[in-house]
């Protein structure tokens, strides 16, 4: 440990870390562009200059490691003057087109220009431009505007150090240095859109979010990506009940600063018609809009006369929902239940220390399987067969659920009431043959949020369900880490959160206040770090 003084504040930090990280311990922000906690230090932007007593010149805070007894000044006249000069240099060739730049509002260059820059420009000459490079699509997701680049090389270091694909590089020399891709090799890797996050200017933006909304018009909610079972921490950017983007939330143990393209743009699946009202099939075989009480009454009538019930759980459920649904369907109703998950990827994600491989297409298979009690047939659980304990490689590839397999391939004959808690429980559920097989149950209850899902049309009772940004809960990721998701906006139309939905079914069948208590699932090491 080293005892250092930063702007008069004495802090004790680990020896060998750099001044920027040390200043964070003293709650002092050292402005920086090229430095990134997860990338190597290059000392290129000179924005993080600090004064260190005993050294004749200002030192770059990112490349200077702290030593016991060091006295660092982040805020004094000399440093301020240097920063102001540096800001002036950076803005000489910056187009200052903030009005049409998507980064405006969350742009480090803009913020530092306000905080550390000078009000007036002394530059009267023509700005250096890159003709024809103001809208270059350099990959499937990334659009580059070279004019806005300040040559911090964060994107180049990201492709060479994190993804290891090295698509980006510097070309030309001096004032005409440009960041670009090699001919024939576009920036097309599985995490390519992360370069738009690390870019401290609007030089790199994502094509999907481009011009969709100004960032200050978006609200943000902490959540967890549900693209795969890695469980990357995200911010959901939303407005008026619509998701506009996902942004990585820093968690060094899981996704560090990154988010894969598949997960980042997985919100696009929500851009569809939603089920917003319950529907009940009438006597003349018409699936018509109904009230909640009519729908619940139809379910109650069917369940009360049923001898064999079954429920298909979904790996998209939160732990709380899985617990509650198990209490309802297994504990009270005595149903056979099963859960399955589609294979995916593997999607690689780099935490600060290790590579994680996402192999399941849903975020919470492990949590749901654990809630069902893996393999415990006594509790009426059918054929849940995920070996979630231990570290053998089988955890990545759960063996197929025999109950669900039987239902989907041979048909659901003999089952009086079949509950499908999420129509998107598997991609196979959209297959017409599978839909026909599931329809063979005498009474089919489908909970769904996608109004275009083929299972909706065959249901006897269709209940509106919610997507993960509309509910609170926890997901268990592949490390067994319990992570919390927060509600961004309330469910649409007459839909209710899934917990409330199960409670309503339970209330109409077994009386009120049956399922009020849900055990707490404690999130492990919750971090709410901002984008560095």
């Amino acid at each position, binding site marked *: 440990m080293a005892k250092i003084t930063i702007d008069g504040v004495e802090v004790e930090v680990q020896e060998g870390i750099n001044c920027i990280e040390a200043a964070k311990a003293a709650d002092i922000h050292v402005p920086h562009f090229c430095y990134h906690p997860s990338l190597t230090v290059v000392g290129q932007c000179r924005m993080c200059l600090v004064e260190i007593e005993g050294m004749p010149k200002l030192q770059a805070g990112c490349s200077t490691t702290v030593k016991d007894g060091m006295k660092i000044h982040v805020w004094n006249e000399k440093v301020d003057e240097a920063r102001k000069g540096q800001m002036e240099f950076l803005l000489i060739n910056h*187009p*200052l*087109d*903030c*009005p*049409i730049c998507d980064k*405006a509002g969350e742009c480090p260059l803009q913020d530092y220009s306000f905080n550390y820059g000078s009000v007036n420009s002394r530059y*009267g000459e*023509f*700005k250096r*431009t890159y003709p024809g490079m*103001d*809208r270059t699509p350099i990959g499937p997701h990334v659009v580059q505007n070279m*004019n806005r680049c300040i040559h911090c090389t964060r994107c180049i270091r990201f492709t060479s150090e994190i993804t290891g694909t090295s698509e980006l590089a510097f070309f030309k020399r001096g004032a005409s240095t440009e960041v670009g891709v090699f001919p024939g090799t576009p920036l097309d890797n599985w995490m390519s859109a992360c370069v738009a996050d690390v870019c401290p200017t609007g030089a790199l933006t994502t094509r999907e979010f*481009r*011009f969709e909304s*100004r960032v*200050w*018009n978006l609200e943000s909610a902490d959540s967890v990506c549900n693209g795969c079972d890695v469980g990357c921490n995200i911010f959901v950017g939303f407005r008026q009940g619509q998701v506009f983007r996902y942004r990585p939330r820093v968690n060094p143990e899981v996704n560090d600063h990154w988010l894969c393209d598949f997960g980042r743009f997985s919100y696009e699946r929500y851009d569809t018609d939603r089920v917003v009202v319950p529907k009940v099939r009438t006597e003349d075989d018409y699936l018509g809009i109904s009230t909640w009480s009519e729908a619940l009454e139809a379910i109650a009538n069917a369940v009360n006369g049923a001898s064999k019930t079954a429920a298909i759980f979904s790996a998209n459920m939160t732990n709380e929902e899985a617990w509650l649904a198990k209490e309802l369907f297994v504990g009270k109703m005595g149903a056979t239940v099963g859960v399955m998950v589609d294979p995916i990827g593997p999607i690689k994600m780099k935490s600060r220390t290790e590579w994680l491989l996402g192999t399941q297409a849903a975020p919470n298979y492990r949590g749901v399987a654990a809630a069902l009690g893996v393999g415990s047939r006594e509790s009426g659980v059918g054929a849940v067969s995920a070996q979630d304990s231990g570290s053998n490689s089988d955890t990545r590839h759960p063996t197929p659920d025999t109950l669900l397999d039987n239902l989907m391939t041979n048909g659901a004959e003999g089952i009086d009431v079949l509950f499908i808690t999420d129509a998107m429980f598997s991609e196979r559920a959209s297959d017409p043959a599978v839909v026909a097989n599931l329809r063979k149950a005498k009474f089919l209850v489908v909970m769904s949020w996608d109004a275009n899902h083929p299972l909706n049309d065959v249901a006897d009772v269709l209940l509106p369900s919610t997507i993960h940004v509309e509910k609170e809960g926890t997901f268990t990721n592949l490390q067994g880490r319990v992570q919390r998701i927060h509600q961004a906006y309330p469910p649409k139309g007459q839909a209710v959160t899934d917990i409330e939905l199960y409670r309503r079914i339970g209330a109409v069948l077994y009386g009120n206040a049956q399922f009020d208590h849900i055990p707490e699932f404690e999130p492990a090491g919750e971090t709410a770090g901002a984008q560095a």
Partner: protein
Amino acid sequence: MNLTRVRPGVVRVERTPLTVLDRLYLPQVIAGMMVTIGHLLHNLFNLKKLPTISYPEVKRVYSERFRGRHILTTREDGTTRCVACYMCSTACPAECITIEAGEDERTREKFPVRYDIDLLRCIFCGYCVDACPEDAIYMTRDYEMAIDTRARSVVGLRDLVVPPNFPVGPMGWRPYYGSIEKHGTAGGTGIGQQLRSAPFEDDAPPNPDVFRGGDAQ
């Protein structure tokens, strides 16, 4: 009237009973008519000082900085100056501006595909004009915005955009009140861009907003 304070916040008002003359109503009606007739006679003998005007034929001259209906200005090449930066809708306290941005692959990086102003929500404060970094939105001195249905209160691009070289001289409220010179391109890549002197430095006409004696208003 007799007021008694009962307790903090509560006042009892004693009603004064009407006199016989009051109850007849006629004396008060006559007193009212006297006022009307007095004004009539006064106006008949002072026709030149009439405060009312015959509106559709005669129109009042408003201030040069009157904040009336908005327009969206255009560049010489016919494209709207607006770059859909949302500054106006962000500054708008009434939240009456709705913008959707689009991208033209060949020419302009960003432009509005939708620009709606709800004139019934608009409070004509002029903040949008002040916020605009491109001198794209001005306010005219047009105050005739009568509509017959509520739906027509929302005006879009086809109502707001004016042709190029539209005379902005007789406009209403606009930023940098004075001579209007605009160089360079939207997006400000710097090509052909000249440094613009600070606002209000050039020869602005005398501020017409200053009250200039009796016959203004």
